[in-house]
């Protein structure tokens, strides 16, 4: 049932219907005609004309919706442009990607692409380094819990009665604004440089001999987690802070009357209220985390020995350094399937949980 109830006056005139369908048909014909023309020897060097014809077709489709379906069409008009846009830009690459995924395509092969059935899948199941990168992803995603705790703490602090709140809010937000490429260089390679970098010097003055950040697999993974956390903690923080600021003040007053204090009040009142926004923040964060790659590619290149590889950075190297496009695309498709299933499950689960909670 729509949330907005409108008594729509539907005008079903035959003329409108004809106009709408006619427009649609004309635009479709134009589109098909243009596509056909591309194959004729008219000197068309690229598919731009088809692009323009498609845009016209999309506009005609939107217009005909309004013409034919009236009020209902106007509602559709809210979603249709975005849906058409996404579908047209994502569908072709996806379908084409699927055909690549089932082929043996090394860019250096003069014969080009060759269908090879399930060979890529078979290779994938035997590829221990791919599975290691999947395992690494598990650790990286788990790190979100720690990020969440820190972000919550920061949000609570910013929500407390403090001086210079504006300054702290801006300062805490800034890491989010920085480019991962620049962060990788200036933090990952400059500040964490183990001889002259300020962090190494600080650690040395604290008595750590020869601090290294990327030599040992566990430490390297941790360093990557920290750098990524540094960038994205502000994102969760602002969502949580927004949630905290939206808590009605009478709730706190009621709690004061009840005499609930400190830790108990946090767990009994604040935290349950924050559950929804927390889930949203964590979900978005998981999605961003699943794409983690820039930092790893620049700073460690997946090393030492694949210990820091994320799935995306692994595929990236297979793809860019080895030009092994077929296999790389298969890995990416597999990853896509895994996360679509995972995310759907997670969203459904949290929706139910949110529903039960409400």
């Amino acid at each position: 049932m729509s949330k907005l109830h409108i008594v729509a006056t539907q005008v079903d005139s035959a003329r409108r219907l004809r106009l709408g369908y006619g427009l649609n048909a004309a635009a479709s014909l134009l589109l098909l005609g243009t596509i056909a023309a591309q194959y004729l020897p008219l000197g068309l060097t690229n598919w731009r004309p088809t692009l323009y014809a498609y845009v016209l077709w999309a506009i005609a489709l939107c217009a005909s919706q309004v013409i034919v379906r009236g009020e209902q069409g106007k509602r559709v008009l809210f979603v249709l442009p975005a849906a058409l846009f996404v579908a047209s830009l994502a569908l072709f690459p996806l379908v084409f990607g699927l055909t690549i995924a089932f082929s043996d395509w090394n860019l250096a092969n003069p014969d080009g692409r060759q269908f090879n059935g399930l060979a890529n899948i078979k290779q994938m199941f035997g590829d221990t380094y791919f599975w290691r990168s999947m395992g690494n992803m598990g650790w990286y995603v788990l790190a979100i819990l720690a990020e969440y705790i820190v972000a919550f703490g920061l949000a609570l602090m910013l929500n407390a009665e403090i001086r210079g709140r504006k300054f702290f809010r801006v300062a805490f937000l800034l890491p989010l604004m920085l480019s991962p490429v620049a962060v990788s260089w200036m933090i990952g390679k400059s500040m964490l440089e183990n001889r002259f970098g300020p962090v190494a010097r600080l650690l040395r003055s604290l008595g750590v001999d020869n601090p290294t950040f990327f030599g040992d697999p566990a430490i390297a993974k941790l360093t990557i987690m920290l750098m990524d956390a540094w960038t994205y903690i502000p994102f969760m923080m602002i969502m949580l802070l927004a949630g905290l600021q939206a808590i009605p003040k009478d709730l706190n007053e009621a709690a004061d009357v009840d005499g609930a204090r400190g830790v108990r009040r946090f767990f009994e009142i604040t935290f349950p209220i924050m559950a929804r926004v927390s889930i949203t923040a964590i979900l978005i964060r998981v999605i961003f985390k699943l794409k983690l790659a820039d930092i790893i590619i620049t700073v460690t290149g997946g090393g030492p020995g694949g210990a820091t590889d994320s799935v995306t950075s692994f595929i990236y190297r297979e793809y860019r350094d080895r030009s092994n496009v077929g296999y790389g695309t298969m890995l990416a498709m597999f990853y896509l399937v895994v996360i679509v299933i995972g995310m759907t499950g997670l969203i459904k689960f949290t929706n139910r949980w949110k529903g039960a909670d409400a």
Partner: protein
Amino acid sequence: MKTDIYKAMTSGRMSRRTMLRGAAATGALAAMPKFALAQAGSVREQILQIPGVGNGAPTEADWRKVGALCLGQTKANVAPGEFAGVELTFMGTNNQNLHNVLFRAFLSSWEEYTGAKINWIDLAQGDYNARLQQSIATGTVDFDLLEMGAPFEGDTAGRGLLDEMPEWVKDAIDMDDLVDYLKAPVGTWDGKTYRVTVDGDCHTFSYRTDYYDNADFAQAWAKEGDGSDWSVPKTWEQVNAYSKFLAGKDDPLTGLPAHGFLDPMKSWGGFSFYFLEDRATAYAKHPDDPAWLFDPETMKPRVNNPAFVQAIQDVLDLIATPGAYPADQINADPGTTAFQQFLAGTGSMLTWWGDVGSSARTSDSSVVGDVVGFDILPGANRVYNSKTQEWEERYNESPNMAYLGWGIYVTSRVSGDELKRKAAWSAAAHLGGKDISLWTSAYPSGYQPYRKSHFNYDEWEIAGYDRAFVEDFLGSNLDSYNHPNAAVEPRIPGIFQYYSAAEDELAKGFAGQYESAQAIGDAIAEAWEKITDQIGRDSQIALYRASLGL
């Protein structure tokens, strides 16, 4: 002989002038013929003094001046404004704001004179192979001029993507002046010439002279060492022995921990594999056999034969020695190893391209300019014979001609348009000109000497170099180029895929993910076999044999 001069130089008692006198007195150094010494006031002399050694790294204004001074050859072949309205696209690397940025400045006066305009595609070196392969495979070659290494000639010229060099360009750039190993077949394919060489490549051995002049080290070595002299290592066995010995000692220059040989271990778009090759060629390149990476009959990889496994084992031995490498060496970018470590005083031995030599004296980041020495790659006391499958106990050395230098190529996009074609070749000829190249080899440019005329030491003195330093630095290059047992890399399609696969497995191996050096070698061999099958074994065998001259 040279070390005496260095000893005096490093102790700081000698001025440059007295040192030169010392150099002259040794006599042997003055034996080089002084042919074709730059005329006073000539273009060559003028550009060599821009900005002059010791005056900091050259700036863009300097580059533009050099480019303008070297226009003579262009003016001889092209009328002013002849290319008005022509637009060319140039794809190359942006190495440290050199290569493409340098070319822009060199070509600015050329653009002004000819009226052509050049658009630029700048790539990070690690992205280079990927971008090139992508353009080729998807038919998106969107550049007219291309800065490329000879190893990629199989990928490009082999597919008809390049434009053949016109005769007038051959004369304009004086191709006969190239050092011999860069002459055909390098730069050609099926007998046609495609390349304007702008760089010569080989790896040489750089070391810190103050380590080997150091009495404390010599004394300690006498006590802890194997009884040999404390001197510049001649074999990889020695390199490893010294590196183990140096672990835990202090650097005489910086006072920080001393280290021996610096192995770059991190992946670098394929380029890292050259450093393992450096260690392996002496073991693997048998003087009677031109092949050393693959078996020329079957393309069966040799990377897991005892020679390569020994080289891998040498690295593993040093990894297992605490303090042999600087901390975190496994994650140091190769460029870092040469320019942030060696030139900054960390580590005492390195194999690298020749640009580390000119940078040692002229770069802003170098602190080792006065204490650095050069030689060809170390040899080994035994060499593996792939035919008999046995080690032969004898001294062997084999300089690694890694990458064969950058060149400028013109793509077949311009072949149909004579004016555009001439413009493209004129630009390439300007960059590969005889005079301009003298400057690029003398100053930080990312390029090495590659012409016979670059080894005229008197000219280098005009730039302000010490004679002894130049002879040492250039001599190591010249000796490598002319070495009878040089390891020349195969120009076969996909060569960087092989390298990239190899460096990935090596990185895993150095991180301790394989049980032994043999296992690492086997993993690389397996990956290589797969690549060969993917690209097509028969055609690879044919091209490999052709590139070896078989």
